[in-house]
């Protein structure tokens, strides 16, 4: 178990290293930097600019800069934000927490809905059910995430039931933890719902198709022939047999979710990684950009690692291999 996990984690670490190198190479190829934008301000002299450039290490060659960044990452700083004059990590951590606050419930809720629903739909072999299912999921899949986000915002504006954007109400500055929790979860409802909507169709389809495949197998027919109760057949025997590809999908669903989440955060004004990434891009705050992309990659790798652990627990074949 430990060795298996260590290997997967090592793989993830190598991945992160590769991504960071890739980003640095791209950075090198990019024209202009944060200092170049300062140049437009005539009050800042050329000497000051050169001084700043040297201070930030922007005048040094790429490998040196990369090494410096690795050093600062090892200290937990992840480089320096030019725009905010702080280590990038102080900007990244709170944003990462907020993004997780959206994505973790969204993943859990969509799986909690999709798993039983998908299994039940797979068990129902009526023609009409199939029609409705494929029509419904295709429509959901075809809805652009931008539209979903805007519609969620529209609902908030029209009904007034939900807060419009943001994570906390400004008026409630001094409050107990309980009030804060209630306020934040109230703000979470719409963004999480939009995320679930973006994810649900994909998971439902996979659950249904892999359970359906198992149901078609001879051993399930035999079990059916022996007169096992329908629900027991579906959830006790079909679902575990179909679990393997679904658990791998769990890791993938995290990736899809992160991409959708970026958009929802921007549209709904949720202070997560997404809006910060966008702002950092516009101000050419490069270490923050790198940090944000790496963070999202780290979330993804963590999701995959979780899927690996689940797979290890659920699938005896993998335990045998390692």
């Amino acid at each position, binding site marked *: 178990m430990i060795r298996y996990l260590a290997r997967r984690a090592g793989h993830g670490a190598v991945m992160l290293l590769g*991504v960071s190198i890739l980003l640095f190479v791209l950075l090198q190829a990019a024209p202009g930097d944060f200092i170049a934008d300062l140049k437009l301000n005539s009050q800042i002299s050329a000497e000051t600019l050169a001084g700043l450039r040297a201070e930030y290490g922007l005048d040094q060659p790429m490998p040196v800069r990369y090494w410096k960044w690795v050093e600062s990452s090892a200290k937990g700083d992840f480089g320096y934000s030019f725009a905010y004059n702080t280590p990038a990590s102080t900007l990244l951590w709170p944003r990462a927490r907020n993004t997780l606050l959206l994505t973790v419930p969204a993943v859990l809720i969509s799986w909690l809905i999709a798993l039983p629903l998908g299994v039940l739909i797979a068990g129902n072999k009526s023609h009409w059910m199939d029609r409705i299912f494929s029509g419904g999921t*295709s429509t959901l899949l075809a809805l*652009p*995430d931008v539209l979903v986000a805007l519609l969620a915002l529209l609902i908030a*504006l029209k009904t007034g039931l939900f807060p419009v954007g943001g994570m906390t109400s400004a008026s409630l500055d001094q409050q107990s933890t309980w009030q804060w929790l209630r306020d934040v979860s109230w703000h979470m409802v719409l963004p999480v719902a939009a995320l679930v909507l973006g994810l649900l169709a994909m998971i439902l389809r996979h659950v249904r198709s892999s359970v359906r495949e198992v149901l078609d197998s001879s051993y399930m027919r035999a079990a059916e022939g022996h007169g096992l109760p329908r629900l027991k057949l579906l959830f006790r025997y079909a679902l575990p047999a179909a679990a393997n590809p679904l658990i791998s999908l769990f890791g993938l669903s995290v990736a899809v979710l992160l991409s959708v989440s970026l958009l929802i955060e921007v549209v709904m004004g949720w202070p997560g990684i997404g809006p910060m990434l966008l702002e950092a*891009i516009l101000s050419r705050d490069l270490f923050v950009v790198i940090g944000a992309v790496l963070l999202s990659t780290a979330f*993804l790798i963590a999701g995959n690692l979780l899927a690996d652990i689940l797979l290890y627990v659920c699938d005896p074949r993998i335990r045998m291999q390692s």
Partner: protein
Amino acid sequence: MNFLKPRAESRHSDPSPAKKAGSGFQGKPFRLAWALWFLVAIHVVVLLAGFIAPYSFDTQDRLYPYAPPTHLHFVDCQGKFHLRPFVYVTKLAGDNLTEYTQDCSQTARMEFFLRGDGYTLLGAFHSNLHLFGVEAPASMFLLGTDGFGRDQLSRLLYGGQVSLFAGFIAAALSVLAGLLLGAIAGMYGGRVDDVAMRFAEIFITVPWFYLLIAVRAFLPLQISPITAFLLVISVIGIVGWGRPARLVRGVILSARERNFVLAARGFGASNAYLLRRHLMPLTFRVLLTQMTVLIPQFILAEVIVSFLGLGIGEPFPSWGNMLASAQQYHVLVSYWWMLLPGLAPVPVFLAYHSLAEKLQERIKSHI
């Protein structure tokens, strides 16, 4: 490799999917054709935007900001029926720039093939002939106008040129890059394979939208619209090559050991010849399917990148930057037609998804 596995397993354990696909074959060509014809039609319409759209994409009418969709009438105020539809001249009511009234006394018949704004068709033919429209004092905004009084329908058509073809070209680019690198990796194996696939894995691992935006971040922000278009396409195309490369590698890896390939090698065929004549043609089916999967994804990518203000800029419309103004609360609440650019991709996506599904079924039934 991961998603090739289940397919291979199902082939060994259960021959029934192939049989099923075979038995239901009669219905299929028609269904495939439906999606295909729809896509062809919409691309042609969008290409002919200059002719079909009643106005140019940048024709502003500052007297009509956020004008609601113009109604086509058949029956006039006196209750008389007209065979040819007509519109009333619309005027702003009051000074608040939000309410419009129809002037019953002034009508304009809908004209076909009338002269209007000049345009260039397919980059070659100059013309000012429009399929339909109304004469000057009246105006016909079938899907309303935006904040600058620009016709939303015309902009949707022109924007389709950008969004649809951005997706298409970017997907072609991705698939081509994937074909090249995947073929080399599968053919030469060993160290080359390792490096190429690790590299592909990086592109697949990173949440691709973050990567897309980050890559865009490192390119200049202020650029001309044409450059922006090419830039967005190439960035999307480059970021997406990992998956097709994996697929191609898988196909080549298994085909490399097949008898006819071994025979050709025995006759002294070079690696390059084998790839060109025997192996790459085998990947065609997989890549075609991959195209239909990637195109809608990449259309959406362009829409989102432009929506966030990092793609195609004003005055050129894309479905993404048209949607950007709907982020303002008053626009979102008051003017529903500003959400139409978000709805426009839905039928296109449906058609592509159905096409992809059919192609995948076909591949399965062939195996």
